[in-house]
């Protein structure tokens, strides 16, 4: 995996240059067809009328313009269709790239596991927002600039006097959208922040709803939400107003430009420098430009949204986890802790000055009431939490070893994925056979349950593993962990939901499997096991 790098908007389009170029080209062609269709039609009937007035149609070549008009009509239709397809193809490709790269980035970031579900939800929608940049910012501006240039060229060829009057206004119409740029970007950022605040302000009272109603504090607690809601709506309104005002200004400028074009054109006609059909064509080209320039006013908001999304995505990328290197420990193992103290972030209490030693084949049983810090201790041992005191494996501090393939840690809330049972298990060992899967399910007392499922190994575990109970989920994760064949196992409450007898059996199997390794189990159940040391933590 390559090193993570912050997202830059301008590099969004580099990865799929071919697809984007095609989309932009098609978009441009479509717009040219739109403009030409109008201008040509106008010119055609004017020229035809002129020819008709002079000498009823004799000598007027109507085949070529007629064919051109039909071509433009078809080009416009086909072009727009193809442009939409190709730009969406490119955009979807971009989203795929972004998802994969963000995933790899978060995979390497040490802080990833602290993100709440909400953060992650936001991550998904933020990635979706990034395709606004090429679709709604780059493409419209490129088309608008190129077409305006073409229009100017056309006018210049007709008569220089047309340019003099209309150019400044046209350019102004092009520049107007940029006036709102900084405001739009600022508004987008404020909107994103307010939206997050609003969500928080709703979630909090919602989580204590029953008591707040009983205490008659519900309406009062909701005030913060109502306030945030109104604030957000005001921001949205201001943004919409910004767009509306730029559109208003732009269209007024374009209107003035049209008036000046007529004025100058009239003068040019009088002097015989210009023909009527061509003046009409020039005016109609300007008409068609309305459709092309208006999206520019919306583009600043899209830019603001994608900038805000980019910033949030870049914030999510935390510091990269230190690459572990060093020798891989080999058995027999000896784990020694001395005066170990650890705390959850912000926690008041936790394990305090714990000491023990453990050698291969032995089981350490950590006991104690909830709140005594059993899980915290295990997390510290697994290297997931900083600790004070000393912790050594085979005589060396833990940091000396590369432990990726040695320590297996079962947290209290292990993650099951929205995959089948077999797929979840094979995350531990991709090459495991079905019989190996059944064996390991038997070891964790899940074989009967799995056999009762209509789809057996192919049972879907539902979103976030919701289809299984907490205890079952933990044991599925345990089975997955066992498949990785780690010599050092740290298990947090693996027997939840099991009666004492079954728990005892599972513990025996675990002991057998770990004969040449280390096994540490946190549980509030009392089990009778050979070769085990029990460490009881007490609440301070």
């Amino acid at each position, binding site marked *: 995996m390559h090193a993570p790098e912050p997202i830059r908007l301008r590099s969004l389009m580099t990865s799929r240059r071919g697809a984007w170029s095609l989309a932009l080209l098609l978009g441009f062609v479509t717009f040219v067809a739109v403009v030409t269709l109008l201008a040509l039609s106008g010119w055609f*009937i004017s020229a035809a*009328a002129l020819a008709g007035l002079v000498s009823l149609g004799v000598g007027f070549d109507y085949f070529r313009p007629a064919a051109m008009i039909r071509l433009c009509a078809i080009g416009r239709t086909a072009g727009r269709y193809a442009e939409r397809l190709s730009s969406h193809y490119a955009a979807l490709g971009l989203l795929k790239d972004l998802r994969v790269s963000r995933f790899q980035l978060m995979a390497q970031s040490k802080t990833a596991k602290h993100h709440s579900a909400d953060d992650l939800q936001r991550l998904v929608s933020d990635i979706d927002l990034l395709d606004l940049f090429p679709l709604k910012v780059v493409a419209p501006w490129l088309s608008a600039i190129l077409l305006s240039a073409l229009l100017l060229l056309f006018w210049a060829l007709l008569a220089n006097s047309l340019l003099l009057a209309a150019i400044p206004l046209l350019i102004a119409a092009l520049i107007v959208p940029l006036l709102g740029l900084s405001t739009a970007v600022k508004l987008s950022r404020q909107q994103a922040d307010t939206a997050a605040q609003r969500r928080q302000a709703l979630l909090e009272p919602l989580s204590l709803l*029953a008591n707040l109603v009983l205490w008659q504090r519900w309406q009062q607690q909701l005030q913060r939400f109502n306030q945030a809601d109104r604030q957000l709506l005001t921001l949205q309104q201001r943004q919409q*107003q910004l767009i509306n005002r730029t559109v208003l200004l732009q269209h007024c400028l374009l209107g003035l430009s049209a008036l000046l074009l007529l004025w100058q054109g009239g003068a040019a006609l*009088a002097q015989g420098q210009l023909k009527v059909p061509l003046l009409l064509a020039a*005016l109609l080209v300007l008409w068609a430009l309305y459709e092309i320039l208006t999206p520019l006013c919306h583009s600043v908001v899209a830019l603001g949204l994608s900038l805000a999304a980019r910033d949030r995505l870049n914030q999510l990328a935390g510091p990269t986890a230190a690459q572990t290197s060093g020798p891989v420990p080999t058995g027999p193992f000896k784990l020694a802790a001395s005066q170990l103290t650890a705390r959850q972030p912000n926690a008041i209490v936790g394990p305090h000055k714990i000491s023990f030693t453990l050698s291969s084949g032995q089981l350490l049983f950590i006991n104690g009431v909830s709140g005594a810090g059993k899980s915290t201790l295990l997390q510290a041992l697994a290297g997931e939490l900083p600790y004070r005191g000393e912790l050594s494996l085979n005589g060396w501090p833990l940091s000396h070893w590369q432990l990726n393939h040695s320590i297996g840690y079962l947290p209290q809330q292990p993650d099951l994925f929205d995959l089948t049972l077999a797929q979840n298990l094979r995350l531990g060992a991709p090459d495991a056979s079905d019989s190996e899967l059944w064996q390991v399910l038997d070891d964790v007392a899940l074989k009967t349950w799995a056999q009762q499922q209509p789809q057996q190994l192919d049972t879907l575990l539902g979103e*976030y593993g919701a289809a299984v109970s907490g205890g079952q989920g933990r044991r599925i994760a345990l089975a997955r962990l066992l498949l990785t064949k780690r010599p050092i196992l740290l298990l947090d409450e693996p027997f939840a939901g099991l009666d004492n007898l079954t728990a005892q059996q599972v513990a025996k199997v675990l002991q057998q499997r770990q004969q040449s390794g280390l096994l540490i189990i946190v549980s*509030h159940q009392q089990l009778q096991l050979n070769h085990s040391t029990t460490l009881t933590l007490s609440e301070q």
Partner: protein
Amino acid sequence: MLAIAAVALLVLQSYLLSLLFADWLTALANGQSPTPTLLTSLLPALALCLLGRPLLHYGREQLSVQASQQVRLTLRQQLLQPIAAAGPGKSQYGTDGAISTKLLEQVDALDGFISRYYVQRYLVLVTPVIMALATAYYSLLAAAILLLTAPLVPMFMILLGNAAASASQKQFTELSRMGGRFLDLVRGIATLRQLNALDRASNSVAHAAERYRDSSMRVLKMAFLSGAVLEFFSALAIALLALYLGLGLLGILPWAKGEIPVPYQGALFILLLAPEFYAPLRQLGSDYHAKALAEAAITELQPILLQQAWQHNGNQPLSFAAAPAIHINQLSIAGAEGRQRLAPLSIAIAAGERIALQGPSGCGKSSVLDALLGFTPYQGEIWLNQQALSEVNLPQWQAKLGYMAQQSRFIAASIAENLRLAMPAATDEQLKQVLHQVELWPLLSRLPLGLDTLLGERGLGLSGGQLQRLALAQLLLRDAPIWLLDEPAAHLDGATAYRLHQLIGRLSLGKTVIIVSHQLHGLDWLDQVIQLPEGGNLLRQGGANARA
């Protein structure tokens, strides 16, 4: 209204322009040099059109935005009412996260529909009619071309739109499925790292995205086709009109050789109007997804909106202050879809008696509490001493209740602020006293910030048992004579549950208590344990201490 005025201005503008150009052209054809006299006279009117239309458009947009905001604000307040009235039953609408998504994002998704689609729907009927009438004045055939193609557009829109709508619905599902897969894997990133399965997972992300792209491209082709049809008709009609008018002006139409069916001024007028004829239709087409979004959102919101906010109508003042006796007579509660949440139940609880409700999950234990809390309608009677619950003033009754759920939640604020939610006027001394009673003070007093220590998101930093004891402290501050406890120790391990149960026993003396609990470990102080079987028959046991 503003929009229609804008259309009228457009017609006028096209008329003026066609007059102007016709004048120039005739002058030219007659060998004269075109004069700017007409231009000067028309200029003010033209300026009015060119500048007036953007202004009218601006006004219309502003009004739409305001309307949409008003609707969304009101709708959100409307949605919050049934949710608040449902109390703990809010879970029928989904998790808190899902509810807030509905209230926030889904309601906001209506914006495009209200502010654009709604108006556009009328405009799409009015505008073409006005324009077709104007066209018909000059040429019936041209108006016929316009009018013939116009209905084809909505017709194809409906044909393709239906297909496209279901297709885009599918794509939406695909998208959320891919988002779900991504989210699922990101959430489990720590586990994947543990298992050294990150590369496989990132491949899976890539695969899912690739599949999504392929499937949605197939879908998009269809969706864009409806756009292409619109485009095709409008382009075709313009081309047809241009050719018909142009060839007519040349006098070489096959059926009318040597005639000029539409004079130049009329022809130009028609041509200028033609693109605008289709503009509202095309706009409607591109706003179509706003409608699809809104429809999806409304489907999500429907269950909450349809829920008749249940009204408690009683208005009698409470006639007691101390712990009352509670008589439940033939109480039953209907659930969704005709199911019964609680089969008829009768219990008599003496004043100051403390009982437990037990039974298999789904037998309606918690529903009894919901009914007593005033969060759900019920059949049967609940008597509080000699007063019927349905007759009393609900806020007064609720003020007498102490309620605790399986997992107590706290706001991200200090311990003191959390406690004062229950009793804003409580002094620091009172807070310390209740914390002492729930045996938290020895621990909290050691904190450098004491009562001002912040509780993190979801009360991070305290264990489950400690958080439940903090919730108990809130109840003590209220000094409520009736406690309704819904499995307060369900998420605690044996020893901690025992300790919490014992603590509740010591602190609830003299109160009328109903506790729903799976295990009776540590509840030896109860006067009565009532078993609710699944079917309705009531098993009554003596007090737990009587059995022991």
